[in-house]
């Protein structure tokens, strides 16, 4: 095992919108404060000297696009002004939708196979309060929030990260079949899958029957886009469920068929934070 989840955090974002904040810019200023606080908290798991080694902080998203695409908000607005950030956001990746975190890791670790740590945040917040994103027939109710991961790269192997795209447009069954192949013969592996309502989840129930997996938390959180597999790990981590080391396959699938997986190890030294909703 080569990727170790040093720390992970999730903060639900339920009430930050352009109207509640007074403007879109103010809403993003609020989000950037949360990003700053969460990143600082996650980085507390390692020493200040090691923090300086971290070369990249990817910010990924599925549904935050129009503020950036229209030019209303710039990437630089994601970092708070006037506070020293240990590892500011360097790269905003949303093209691969829910699988953006996996494509970012694939790119970075190919470029920097000797990197020791990498940080990824996944932000999905309905700052424009659009009904399309509140719920959708493709994933049921949505959940919004910010997730940050600090991964230690112990000895990277390409197979630890998968980032690819379904061949067909029947994407969820194809994705489940791919996960099935990856997990076959791996009795030590626990699957952490995206959250879906029952009508979609039954694809996983049927095709991944018999494989150990974390429970679907759609009823509690809704579909939280790329954060789902990590939020599930965070929820179990804060409950103290990782007293023994576990190997987990975090898996995400996007509406357009992009998918990604990361095999990570967690243990009782991993730190987890689940904050109150803002």
């Amino acid at each position, binding site marked *: 095992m080569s990727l170790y989840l040093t720390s992970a955090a999730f903060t639900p974002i339920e009430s930050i919108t*352009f109207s509640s904040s007074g403007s*879109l810019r103010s809403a993003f200023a609020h989000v950037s404060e949360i990003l700053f606080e969460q990143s600082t908290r996650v980085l507390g798991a390692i020493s200040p000297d090691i923090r300086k080694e971290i*070369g*990249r902080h990817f910010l990924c998203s599925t549904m935050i*696009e*129009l*503020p*950036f*695409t*229209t*030019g*209303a908000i*710039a*990437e630089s607005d994601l970092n708070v002004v006037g506070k020293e950030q240990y590892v500011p956001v*360097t*790269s*905003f*990746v*949303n*093209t*691969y939708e829910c699988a953006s975190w996996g*494509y*970012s890791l*694939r*790119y970075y670790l*190919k*470029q920097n196979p000797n990197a020791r740590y990498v940080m990824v945040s996944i932000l999905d917040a309905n700052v*424009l*309060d*659009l*009904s*399309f994103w509140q719920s959708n027939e493709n994933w049921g109710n949505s959940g919004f929030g910010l997730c940050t991961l600090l991964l230690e790269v112990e000895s990277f192997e390409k197979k630890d990260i998968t*980032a*690819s*795209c379904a061949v067909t447009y029947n994407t969820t069954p194809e994705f489940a079949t791919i996960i099935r192949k990856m997990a076959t013969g791996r009795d030590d592996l626990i699957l952490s899958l995206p959250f879906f309502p029952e009508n979609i989840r039954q694809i996983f129930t049927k095709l991944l029957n018999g494989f150990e997996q974390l429970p679907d938390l759609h009823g509690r959180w809704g579909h939280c886009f790329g954060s789902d597999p990590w939020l599930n790990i965070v929820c179990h981590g804060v409950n103290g469920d990782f007293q023994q080391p576990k190997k987990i396959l975090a898996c995400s699938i996007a509406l*357009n*068929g*992009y998918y990604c997986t990361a095999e990570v190890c967690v243990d009782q030294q991993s730190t987890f934070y689940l904050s109150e909703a803002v």
Partner: protein
Amino acid sequence: MSKLIEITATLVRNPYPDLPKLCAARTLPLHREEDFEAISILPVNSNPMMQNYAEHYRLIVELLGCIKSFEAKIDTCLLRMQMPAGGRMPKEFLDEKVLMLQDVRAEEAFLQREGKPYIAIEDTLPRHPLESGNNKIQIRIACEQNHSDLYWNLVEGISTKLKAVGFDAVETTVKDRTA
């Protein structure tokens, strides 16, 4: 000394003028009055839309094909890509050599500092009025000096391609690259 070659150009017409167009507005559905109010706070681009989503992807795929045909040994390609995308991206964009970003500049700066060879395609070609952009393209090639013939052939190939698909004011600048 390695070099940074930059090709800039402006799109002045539709890249594929003799082909029928699919109507592809591709905005997300707006259901409530509040949805329309929310969208109305966003800036709207007044520059002409010269192409649709499919044509934009075709254009970038053809540029990547042009680059590949010269067999330049460049393992990294950064693409500026705006969302929403209106559908699944071409497989060429999903190659492990490629990373698509909302803004390529910060990631490109890392490659610059590390002295790595790369190609960055930074276009501001709007496909919808809710996309900013002024129909410019910048293609930057960071390469080693000792393959200069190959890279100049590549520059010539890209420039010819850009002109063929409706770009004007194609200009090339070369800088010494400071790692």
